[in-house]
């Protein structure tokens, strides 16, 4: 068994999967990072990702273009997040309640629409499409080991890395990013400079929605090519946990996402490794680890001070 593990082919495969699954989480986490840095706690990430997965599938299915599917996924995420923004930011309804409600609503809506569009789906005639294939970066993907892991990924993964750099740059090097960070710590500072707090936060929420939608599209369009209920299986919640675990910093979030991706990937391959434990344990592993992770992160100090608190001008 040990010799099997040592076969570099398997390890490479796991690590490549890790990057793939990790970047899905990374996309959603980056979106939520921006939202939370503005002071808003958006718990509807799962619903937004699901909407993205659905929207992406539908878009691609009917237009026969995967990239148009990605665009509709982003649109779907945007719409759902706009609903959240309407409730939580404009109407100032409790953010936790708003997030949970939007989650429930999005789940109901996507499932209904799917059934409405494909009324006669059974086990044998699930609507499917041809998903993205891996895009090998020329030259770089020929590097032994690293090439397979880092440079033979789906386009969406490269996009995720790029977005991570963009988000980091935005947060720490731009005027708007500074305003955003200040919003999360003390929105009054920003308000007194004459900047519209509500509008800024709403825009941040929309960005989070687009990112979550994008992440969702990754699930349907870059791996399985079908849509089923609960296809996101809690990844939205993992994304929220990753933001906490990554102490609200982009680079740490990157590592956290890759780590969770690794666990996910490992779980899929462990049977191949011949490990003699029930497979359900491995399926449960990401969730167990997330629980441990938030426990370990309980003393994290990076949380925006005004997170989750409505801003009321006095």
């Amino acid at each position, binding site marked *: 068994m040990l010799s099997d593990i040592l076969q570099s082919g398997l390890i490479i495969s796991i690590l490549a999967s890790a990057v793939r699954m990790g970047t899905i989480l990374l996309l959603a986490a980056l979106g939520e990072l921006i939202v939370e840095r503005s002071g808003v706690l958006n*718990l509807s990430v799962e619903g937004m990702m699901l909407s993205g997965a659905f929207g992406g599938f539908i878009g691609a299915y009917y237009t026969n273009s995967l990239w148009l599917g990605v665009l509709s996924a982003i649109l779907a995420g945007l719409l759902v997040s706009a*609903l959240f923004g*309407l*409730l939580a930011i404009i*109407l*100032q*309804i409790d953010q*936790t*309640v*708003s997030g*949970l*409600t*939007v989650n*429930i*609503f*999005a*789940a*109901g*809506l996507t*499932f*209904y629409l799917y*059934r*409405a569009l494909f*009324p006669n789906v059974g086990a044998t005639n699930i609507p499917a499409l041809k998903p993205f294939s891996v895009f090998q970066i020329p030259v770089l993907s020929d590097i032994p080991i690293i090439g397979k892991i880092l440079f033979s990924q789906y386009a969406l993964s490269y996009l995720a890395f790029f977005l991570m750099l963009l988000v980091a740059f935005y947060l720490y090097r731009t005027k708007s990013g500074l305003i955003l960070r200040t919003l999360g710590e003390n929105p009054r500072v920003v308000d007194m400079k004459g900047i519209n707090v509500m509008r800024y936060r709403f825009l941040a929420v929309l960005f989070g929605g687009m990112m979550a939608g994008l992440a969702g599209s990754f699930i349907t369009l870059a791996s399985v090519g079908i849509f089923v209920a609960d296809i996101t*299986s*809690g990844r939205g*919640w993992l994304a*929220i*946990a990753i933001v*906490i675990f990554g102490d609200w910093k982009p680079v740490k979030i990157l590592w956290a996402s890759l780590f969770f991706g690794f666990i996910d990937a490992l779980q899929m391959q462990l049977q191949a490794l011949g490990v003699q434990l*029930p497979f*359900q*344990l491995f*399926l*449960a592993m990401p*969730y*167990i680890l*997330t*629980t441990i992770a*938030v*426990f370990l992160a*309980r003393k994290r100090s990076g949380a925006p001070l005004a997170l989750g608190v409505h801003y009321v001008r006095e």
Partner: protein
Amino acid sequence: MYKVIIKLPYTIEKRKDISFLLSSLSIVVALTVSILAAAGMISLYGEDVGIVLKAIAGGSFGSMSALIDTLIKATPILLTGLATVVAFRAKVWNIGQEGQLYAGAMGATFVILTFPDLNLPPVVHIPLLLFASMITGAIWGGIPGYLKARYNVNEIIVTVMLNYVIQYLCTFLLNGPWQEPGSYYYNTVKFPESSFLPLLFDTRLHIGFLIALITAFMVYFLTWKMKLGFEIRARGDNPVAANYKGINIQRVTLITMLLSGAIAGLAGGVEILGIHHKLIWGFSSGFGFTGILICLLGRSHPLGVVIASIFFGALHNGSSAMQIYSDVPRSFVNLIMGLIIVMMLFWEAVFKYRLRRI
């Protein structure tokens, strides 16, 4: 580009407080808008709204049989709704009702499978099993409760995670040590008759509904008539002041999660002992999450939860009939429920503002 500014002679300001009348009016508006939206969607679908509504009504209340089915469907979500009420009143965000419900079902199952030859009369056996389901539910709620109380770990994430964990555990057991010998399916052997919940008035309605109603009353009593309920509400409304006045916030947090988990666990026990008489995979069609929905719809009040759960059971039932008479899919019901909650939150918030002439 020119900005067009339209200045109306009105300004929007927030009300100081909202009267009961206005609050109720917002609910009415929410329901009306939702029904109209539903009707709109049905006709968009090409169906006759009248037929669909009649089918729903008939399927939910049209006959004794339909009514029974409605109440049966209402039972588990009434209980999970109550579990949510207890937690949300304390502003402890328990999203783990689904997992606690599984824990409860598994607890009862554990007792039955471990002690197969207990020849107890139902009047002893059933309370014992239901008690076991409450204990296991409480434990599954107590874990996030303890983490929150002692370490201030985010209970939303932990409860959601534990939902997945326990469902996988359940799958493992149903595919392994608990699986009915010789069966290909994920279920246990049939439970002994002494564990069957008795039926009411010679119908299919098991006493689970009664148990749920009693629990609703008990939650009401707890919340407004008991010291613990007072402290739960205090924690939810102002934990700082509550702390200053001697309420042990950590203790209240933990007890809230234990109670909430217990009630959700009870839902699980009731469902398998009342309907399936075995632990079978998929016995819960999202009862836990629906409970959250029900709590929000019922405004975190036991009476509201009772009404909302019957309403939801009715819709669910009706949707089966609707599927027979039309092409509208069943999942329409979930969408409508979601829409109603969004509308309720929306209109209640809108009614908090008013137009003032300037």
